[in-house]
């Protein structure tokens, strides 16, 4: 069976200068690639985590999947349909099956609508089909652990955690097949983070939805994702089963990223890999391997030739000339 979501070689570009300005300034390329040559797939009931620094293109992938941003190249198949070939009307029909949880829980709720109107908004958009909206609102709010009388409130009267739950309720209103969660734990304190994550995985087990989690919180990734992908400058540098990557990252960037994550055990021996320098500009991508400017293991080859994607067992892929070694069986 083909996966629910299958993205291959997706490229998303942003225009950096207007049509007129790009002619006047004689720019031959007024675009930057925010997402570049990205491929992944996601099965129903599975969770994929996208990890990377700010500006690495994580949210752009989400926006492109939801049709908020045009895809310049590549193909996106969702539930058997090629999203890029759909017209606006058919795309809207697909939107029933994919929902988004936004990074800003309060800011993504229309401020003058009551919570009840907000969680039932998807029915108003896609047709209520004889449903009683009061009942639906109560059902959805109960499902995410809020009392039904929250329906009468306005977004600014909610705490961050409550607004997040409303976001979950709205995302699940139409029983979508895919939920894209952009930083589902941003701005929440740790106990509420845990509640929201548990809520998500419970609902996933019950409803069998696929979840694409976008975060820079590695603990979130470790706890709820089956697979993860690490992004740098709009590309996937490494992708694979979450546990395999945490056990032995193959790409130096992943290693540095993972080693920056605090360990709860202060005695755990851990070599910290620190990167120097800044993330290069998307406008001026480095030649060769794009990570060579910051890579502790960079050699001459890295500065001139871009590495290709290597695949090892269990669909663990990485883009590096000199990948870190897989764990050797200890001689003992």
């Amino acid at each position, binding site marked *: 069976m083909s996966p629910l979501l299958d993205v291959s070689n997706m490229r998303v570009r942003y225009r950096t200068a207007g049509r007129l300005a790009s002619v006047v300034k004689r720019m031959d390329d007024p675009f930057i690639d925010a997402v570049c040559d990205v491929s992944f797939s996601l099965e129903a009931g599975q969770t994929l985590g996208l990890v990377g620094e700010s500006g690495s293109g994580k949210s752009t992938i989400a926006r492109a999947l939801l049709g908020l941003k045009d895809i310049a190249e590549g193909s996106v198949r969702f539930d058997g349909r090629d999203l890029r070939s759909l017209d606006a009307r058919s795309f*809207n029909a697909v939107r029933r099956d994919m929902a*988004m949880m936004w990074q*800003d829980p309060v*800011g993504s709720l*229309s*401020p*003058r609508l009551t919570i009840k109107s907000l969680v039932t908004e*998807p029915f108003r*958009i896609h047709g209520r089909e004889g449903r009683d909206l009061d009942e639906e609102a109560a059902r959805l709010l109960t499902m995410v652990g809020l009392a039904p009388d929250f329906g009468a409130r306005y977004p*600014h009267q909610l705490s961050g955690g409550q607004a997040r739950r409303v976001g979950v309720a709205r995302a699940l209103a139409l029983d979508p097949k895919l939920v894209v969660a952009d930083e589902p734990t941003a701005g929440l304190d740790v106990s509420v983070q845990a509640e929201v994550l548990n809520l998500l995985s419970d609902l996933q087990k019950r409803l069998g939805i696929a979840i694409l989690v976008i975060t820079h919180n590695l603990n979130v990734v470790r706890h709820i994702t089956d697979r993860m992908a690490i992004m740098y400058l709009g590309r996937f540098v490494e992708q694979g089963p979450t546990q395999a990557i945490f056990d032995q990252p193959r790409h130096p960037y992943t290693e540095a990223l993972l080693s920056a994550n605090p360990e709860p055990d202060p005695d755990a021996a851990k070599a910290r890999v620190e990167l120097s320098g800044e993330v290069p500009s998307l406008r001026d991508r480095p030649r060769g391997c794009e990570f060579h400017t910051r890579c502790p293991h960079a050699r001459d080859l890295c500065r001139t030739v871009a590495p290709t994607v290597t695949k090892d067992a269990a669909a663990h892929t990485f883009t590096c000339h000199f990948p870190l070694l897989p764990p050797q069986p200890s001689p003992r």
Partner: protein
Amino acid sequence: MSLAPTTSSSPKSGRPSSWRSGWRRLAADRLGFFGFVLVALFIVAAILAPWIAPYSPTQIMVGPRLAPPSWEHWLGTDQIGRDLLSRVLLGGRVALTVAFATIAAALTIGFALGLAAGFGPAWLDNILVLLFDAVRSFPTIVFGLAVVTLLGPGLSTVVLVVSVTSIPIYARIVRTQTQALRHADYVDAERAMGAGIFRILFVHILPNVVGPLVVLASMDVPLVIATEAGLSFLGLGVRPPMASWGTILNDGYTFIRNSPWPVIAGSIPIVLVTLGFTFFGEALRDIFDPRLRRDV
């Protein structure tokens, strides 16, 4: 700002939870309430003018010429013996008609153009903004003179001139607000759910634009009334013998050496209505958004 502090506005609540709380806040704002009373009096007086005016506003020689205020003529009489109180009351009717007709027209058209400029494509925005700037660069009076030579003086000319010059004011506010909101997270969220453009505009953007607009409209009333008075003063507005505050001032101005009373009678209502709508508008603004009060 010189307003008396309101009592029930917690800094967090961004909008009135109901009409009742809005009304409570207005009642607590003494200056705003005073403004509201003036506005209400003005509207009631203008509507009831033909019935409460003691004399006919156009009948000459109902008393002596240029008489000072007396029990028979509360505001005195003008140069041909017409009762000034009656003329002021009927002139209020003209002012109210012009104010409401103008603002209704400017608000509606300005709203539509502002939404189009703020939400539409960039080229449309550029064209509309150019248009707004072109209209705003014309002094109202000069534009009025031009239109009057084309269409002739009269009430409808005044309404036309003032609405056309007010449209850009409303359109700009709506445009700015819409632009700020078109990339708000919740608008993206609606788009991602598949909401159509009209649903986004009318359910999600419009309610957030209306507040500032109502405030602007109420503060705009005195401006429109003053412009009407100005145009009538110059002889471009309502034609004699019809009464307007501007024509009363104009007539009185000629005879100011003989008697100050016509000028006083013509200017008092302009001052009061201006004050009333300004205070009321400021109070409305605070009710719609209590957070603004600290920024002013």
